[in-house]
């Protein structure tokens, strides 16, 4: 299981909230990114939190600077609407792009980017909000807006495009540090062959064990616990190695 450090970025600062709200500045993106790289993160996710809302992604120059001395894969998410947006980010050193909001307006953009950059570089990003014991609704614009789309239906619908990975974020668990939404990942991993990145909810090591018990998950994405130095990437990776034995 890979450990991914996630940076939610607004106006060139890393921010973090609870359930995607009450956002607070927690640091400088590339300083944190460098730290997580040195600490042994397997990958980084740069997510532009206001990009979809304002119709732009501002991360190209930030990523360009980051990749000068960070040599692990970087995924960029947020506000990628067109081939031009994707080209700019890829040219500036991004390895993968994660798309959510635009797919609800124009799903062909997913197909176009997969054809151009290959499945392995294009991720399907879904923000899932629990609406009943067994169902979740897909949200867009960084967890702000409803789509009336059932998450499992959406995963099935999108599977025809052959996305390389599924970045599945639980809006309810995000920033709460109370554990992953295990049922969400259990259900999703049963209906799709796409490798899943579980995002949102990590608070302590046992949360990983719990998740692993119910769902086949290839990677976990962690932000708050790392930003607030509750735990180090090294400790998380050692724990994962231990429970794999």
């Amino acid at each position, binding site marked *: 299981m890979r450990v991914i450090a996630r940076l939610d970025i607004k106006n060139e600062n890393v921010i973090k909230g609870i359930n995607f709200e009450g956002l607070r500045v927690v640091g400088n993106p590339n300083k944190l990114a460098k730290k997580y790289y040195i600490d042994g993160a397997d990958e980084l996710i740069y997510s532009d939190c206001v990009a979809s809302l304002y119709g732009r992604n501002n991360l190209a120059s930030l990523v360009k600077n980051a990749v000068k001395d960070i*040599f*692990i894969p970087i995924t960029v998410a947020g506000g990628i609407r067109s081939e031009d947006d994707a080209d700019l980010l*890829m*040219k500036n050193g991004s*390895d993968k792009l994660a798309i959510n909001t635009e797919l609800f307006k124009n799903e062909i953009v997913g197909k176009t980017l997969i054809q151009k*950059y290959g499945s392995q570089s294009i991720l399907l990003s879904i923000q899932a909000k629990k609406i009943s014991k067994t169902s979740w609704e897909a949200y867009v614009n960084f967890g702000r807006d409803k789509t009336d789309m059932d998450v499992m239906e959406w995963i099935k619908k999108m599977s025809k495009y052959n996305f390389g990975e599924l970045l599945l974020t639980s809006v309810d668990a995000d920033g709460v540090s109370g554990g992953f939404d295990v049922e969400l990942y259990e259900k999703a991993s049963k209906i799709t062959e796409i490798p899943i990145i579980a995002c949102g909810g990590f608070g302590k090591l046992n949360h990983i064990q719990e998740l692993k018990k119910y769902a086949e998950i290839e990677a976990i994405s962690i932000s708050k616990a790392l930003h607030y130095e509750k735990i180090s990437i090294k400790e998380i990776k050692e724990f994962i190695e231990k429970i794999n034995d």
Partner: protein
Amino acid sequence: MIKKIIIIDYGLGNILSIKNAVNHCGHNVIVTSERKIIESASHIILPGVGAFPSAMRRFKDLDLMDAIHKAKKRKVFILGICLGMQLLFTDSEEFELTSGINLIKGNVVKLDKLGSNFNSKLPNIGWRNCEIVSSGKNINILKYISSSDKFYFVHSYGLINYGKELNVSKSIYKNIEFPAVVNFENIYGCQFHPEKSGPQGLKIIKNFLQL
């Protein structure tokens, strides 16, 4: 001899990161698709991300086949990365059977064909060791690499049907063994991304540039 390090730019692959990695190892590098410049190189890096057929199309459209075959004859050091490694071989079955650059004999097939009873997810994405099983001679770009070092892989296809002359260091994904680092004469290939594999990946790039 003065080193002239070239990254071939045929529009695919994270060229900026490879360039940064070469710079980080203390070398200058030229990113180009110009045949003349490529023909004067001492070290050529062939990047690659994406699909085999479109990569070959771009490579041929830029009229680079001749330049790289000449480089092989001149004993230039060549390093193919990920798809760039696969392109060095005879052909690939990705989407449709497509001829490769064919500097070395071998076929590229979907990973599940490299073993039996494979029922895991593809692509193989993640960090894995690369010295699980080896055949042939030790590969010198793996100098100072230990069996506990891990590298970042992201691929669905792997190399098969290569000749005995190829030196191979294998990796393993679930129950599939596949070539992770290959070497024939002055030609090298990494199935993983050394430029995305942290300090241990940079070591491999450094080793290559010191040849």
